[in-house]
């Protein structure tokens, strides 16, 4: 997959290999959209989409410092949108989420592995 920097869009013909490009750079859409009361305790079961996220630590140096709103979530990845869209694997990073209340929560990405609806079923505190 190649990226055309000048045009800012994907050069691959046919299907879009980088989805959600139309949202890139429009992070204001997400401002204040998250309605949940996310805390340090319940973030593992809560919705990550719509939260502000920042990558603190990662096994890959280029991922460090990515900042933006979480756009999408799959079992092993988070899609984050800032002035472009990144897909970040969960299990090798440490993320700092900022809730609507302004609280900053650091989470090890390993504990977030799982599909969004399956995370709800994850082991409740023992």
């Amino acid at each position, binding site marked *: 997959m190649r990226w055309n920097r000048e045009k800012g869009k994907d050069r691959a013909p046919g299907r879009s290999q980088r*989805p*959600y490009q*139309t*949202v890139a750079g*429009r992070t204001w*859409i*997400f401002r204040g*959209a*998250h*309605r*949940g*009361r996310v805390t340090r305790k*319940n973030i593992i*079961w*809560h*919705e990550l*989409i*719509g939260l502000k996220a920042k990558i603190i630590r990662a096994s890959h140096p280029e991922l460090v410092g990515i900042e933006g709103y979480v*756009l*999408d*979530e799959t079992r092993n990845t988070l899609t984050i949108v800032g002035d472009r869209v990144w897909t970040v694997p969960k299990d090798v990073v440490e993320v700092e989420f900022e809730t609507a209340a302004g609280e900053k929560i650091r989470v090890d990405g390993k504990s977030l592995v799982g599909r*969004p*609806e*399956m995370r*709800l*079923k994850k082991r*409740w505190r023992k």
Partner: protein
Amino acid sequence: MGRKWILRGKEQREKKRIARERVETLFTMAERVFPYSRELANRYVEIALAVQQKAKIRLPKKWKRRYCKKCHSFLVPGVNARVRLRSKPYPHVVIKCLECGHIMRYPYLREKKARRAKTQDQGGVEA
């Protein structure tokens, strides 16, 4: 033993509360994102429905008619949905999804009856 069950009930309630918040959030986001990326809005609806089914909660009334029951796409009246009121056989709302053509009908007889009773009450007070 008894304590364990109490704790479990607490857990369940907490979980359902979180699930409700998640559904609310996802639909709000779908609405926000819709003008820019429809597929993303549809993806949010998909996740919201999955969460709702997993946690066994009711979908909030506000959002119940905002997605297509067949193709699960987020609906915005006037953009990709047609909303009309029909009163002939019985009063109902017809919502047509313009993405897949699916038609959903919801009765509003109860609302109508309630309104009728209300106006009558008011009329009585005035008279």
